[in-house]
């Protein structure tokens, strides 16, 4: 009896042991892989030590330079043998960063392994999943502001606050990448705006003028439609673009409610109960009749083509699209103009500004020192010059003491700069509060396809933001 039981137990053990044999062998490979990683880490550590030595010398040099507010000099280092993994989104024009990568490979011997992801909320999902599962590239390109704060960034990313480059960041920009007092990101490009880009020859042909109120804008659209043109390119196929009318209307919300961002973060101001906020949603519905026929399937890339070729007169999107447009249609750029999304007051028409996507360095990577050195190169005058020479600025720079080269696009220099000169700019809400509803683009496309009224969308979006606020530990009741 006892014997039998023992036999049964040992048989059971044997069975389970056989089951796990497969796992066992892979365990040993994992272990050997771990050792090789450790060995690799040691070599990189050795390399890093040399580069750190080089860095410290540049640090001294650069602090004096910062005092005179000039862009930093490129650091000296040898990073040969290092390959940095990079995760970028498909909607950011590649010419600029690819040129800097190539220059860094030339100068430091560092190589780059670029992986492209989708943009919009699908891209957010991907980044969040990668972070949660620990599969984090050395350099991640991602938004700053509320979208960054939703990532719990200090958990994953390197803190630049003690690095000299952080002193060169524009203060407002710096606040959008600072979380828990730590500076998490390095700006990839310049500031940009959520605005209306338009095809000037159509305006000249019909004798239209740049609208200063929303009603004027709609009557322009009507005139264009009556003339047989596609008044507005809708690009809901890339669904994040559907948000820009609403998000880019922030200047007008602020014009009527100067304390809106703070009240919104505190949970006291809601879109559904703020007249100007509700109007932002209403604008999504107002433009429906003027879209191209296939706007629900038109993508960001399609819309770039449409505007540059004059197949549509307006496109309401982020001005980073000018970068994509310039790389495809350099000759068409003089035909493109930019104006702010108009509000109700013709004398107070202002631009809603976006701060750029940033590079975030994986703080637990074996290549962290190489990545930081590369970031210092990125923010040096040399790096900035290479970037901006290859990808013309979409707006003013975020680096103090750096002046953009003179290849700035006409529409940026003339149309956009005038808003900055007049002081008529405001940051988009996501840079002023840590709360942005995760389903924002679904709500804006629901209004834009006529499924929801502005009132419904505004009140449901308030609920969506509440979920984010609760998750962030804010007390919204």
């Amino acid at each position, binding site marked *: *009896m006892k014997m*039998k*039981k023992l036999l*049964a*137990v040992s*048989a*059971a053990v044997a*069975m*389970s042991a056989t*089951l796990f044999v497969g796992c066992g062998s892979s365990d040993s490979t994992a272990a050997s892989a771990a050792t090789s990683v450790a060995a690799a880490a040691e070599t990189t550590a050795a390399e890093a030590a040399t580069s750190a030595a080089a860095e410290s010398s540049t640090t001294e040099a650069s602090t004096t330079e910062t005092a005179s507010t000039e862009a930093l000099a490129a650091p000296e280092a040898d990073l040969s043998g290092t390959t940095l993994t990079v995760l970028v989104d498909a909607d950011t024009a590649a010419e600029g960063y690819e040129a800097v990568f190539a220059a860094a490979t030339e100068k430091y011997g560092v190589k780059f392994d670029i992986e492209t992801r989708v943009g919009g*909320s*699908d891209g*957010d*999902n991907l980044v*969040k*999943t990668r972070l*949660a599962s620990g599969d984090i590239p050395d350099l991640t390109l991602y938004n700053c502001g509320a979208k960054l704060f*939703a990532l*719990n960034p200090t958990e994953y990313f390197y803190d630049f606050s003690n690095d000299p480059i952080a002193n060169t960041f524009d203060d407002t920009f710096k606040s959008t990448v600072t979380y828990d007092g730590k500076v998490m990101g390095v700006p990839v490009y310049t500031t940009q705006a959520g605005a209306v880009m338009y095809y000037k020859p159509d305006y000249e042909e019909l004798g239209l003028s740049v609208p200063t109120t929303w009603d004027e804008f709609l009557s322009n659209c009507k005139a264009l439609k009556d003339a047989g043109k596609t008044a507005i390119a809708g690009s*809901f196929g890339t*669904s994040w673009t559907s948000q820009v009318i609403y998000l880019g209307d922030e200047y007008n919300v602020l014009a009527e409610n100067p304390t809106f961002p703070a009240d919104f973060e505190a949970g006291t101001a809601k879109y559904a109960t703020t007249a100007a906020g509700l109007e932002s949603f209403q604008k999504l519905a107002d433009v429906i009749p003027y879209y191209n*026929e*296939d*706007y*629900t*399937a038109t993508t960001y890339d399609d819309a770039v083509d449409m505007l540059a070729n004059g197949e549509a007169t307006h496109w309401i999107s982020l001005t980073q699209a000018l970068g994509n447009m310039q790389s495809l249609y350099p000759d068409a750029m003089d035909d493109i103009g930019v104006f702010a999304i108009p509000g109700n007051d013709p004398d107070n028409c202002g631009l809603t500004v976006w701060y750029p996507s940033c590079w975030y360095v994986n703080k637990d990577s074996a290549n962290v020192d190489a990545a930081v050195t590369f970031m210092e190169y990125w923010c040096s005058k040399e790096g900035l010059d290479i970037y901006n020479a290859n990808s013309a600025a979409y707006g003013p720079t975020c680096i103090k003491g750096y002046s953009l080269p003179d290849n700035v696009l006409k529409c940026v220099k003339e149309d956009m700069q005038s808003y900055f000169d007049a002081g008529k700019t405001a940051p988009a809400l996501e840079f002023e509060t840590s709360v942005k509803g*995760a*389903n924002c683009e*679904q*709500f804006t*496309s*629901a*209004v*834009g*396809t*006529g*499924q*929801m009224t502005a009132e*419904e969308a505004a009140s*449901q979006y308030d*609920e*969506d933001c509440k*979920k*984010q606020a*609760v*998750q962030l530990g804010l007390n919204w009741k």
Partner: protein
Amino acid sequence: MKKEKIYSIWFLMPAFVIFAVFFLIPVLSSFFYSLTIWDFKTFTFCGFDNYVMFFSEPSLNTSLIHTLVYAFMTSGLKVLFAFFIALFLTSKIRTKSFIRSAVFFPNLVSAIAVGITFTTLMHPTKGIINIIIKALGGSTVNFLGDPNIALFSVIAVDVWKGVSIATVIYIAGIQSIDSTYYEAAQIDGATFWQRVWNVTLPMCAPAMDSVIILSLIGGLRCFDLIWAMTGGGPGFATDVIASVVYKQYAAGFYGLSTAGNVIMLVLISIIAFPLQHFLIKREEALS
């Protein structure tokens, strides 16, 4: 002396351990986390707030209706179409093996590839389907962009892709029917449709039951095809529970998305178990 058991309970342990680790513990812990606000490291207990939110917010609860519409329509259409395709493919036709492979082909392509392909085919102006409609004089249909028909467009593609598995199951069921039944019916003067109705249909009931259960459960938890074709959009027009769960998870609302998963588990269970019970009863009654 107690009667000795031949097999000790210990033999159960390896399987039970695996079942517990990979099924029981996750299910129980997901019940627990669905009652919290959770960020993987810390959690705050919030009672049934997540469930209340799931059922009260229009952006979440429309997905329940879409899921039911999707599951019942895809299942119903597959059961119907597959039966007639199987009937045709078991009859005396020449190119039987070629047509059988052709019918099965869509199932070999991944759902994502099918989704992307059909998104292109269904493009409102450049898609080949609309080009054909236009050439025939019709007005173009915005298959995936019109919120009123987007869900049905995805259902149509799901049926196109999934009908093959159902057909194969039916073919197996129909071929296993003894030919003497047909001969007897024929001698009694039954027409073709009478034979189908009185012999084929009742005799392949077990196959039909498998098709119903498999396609219904598949429909209730469908995600890949919908995500590839519409991403739940435009707006929320094609959101099903699985896509909402994914979006909430990806947004970082882990507690809420876990609650969505529990709701999906419960929904599938309360539909699938009684249905299976009913179908087995019916099968027994028939035989």
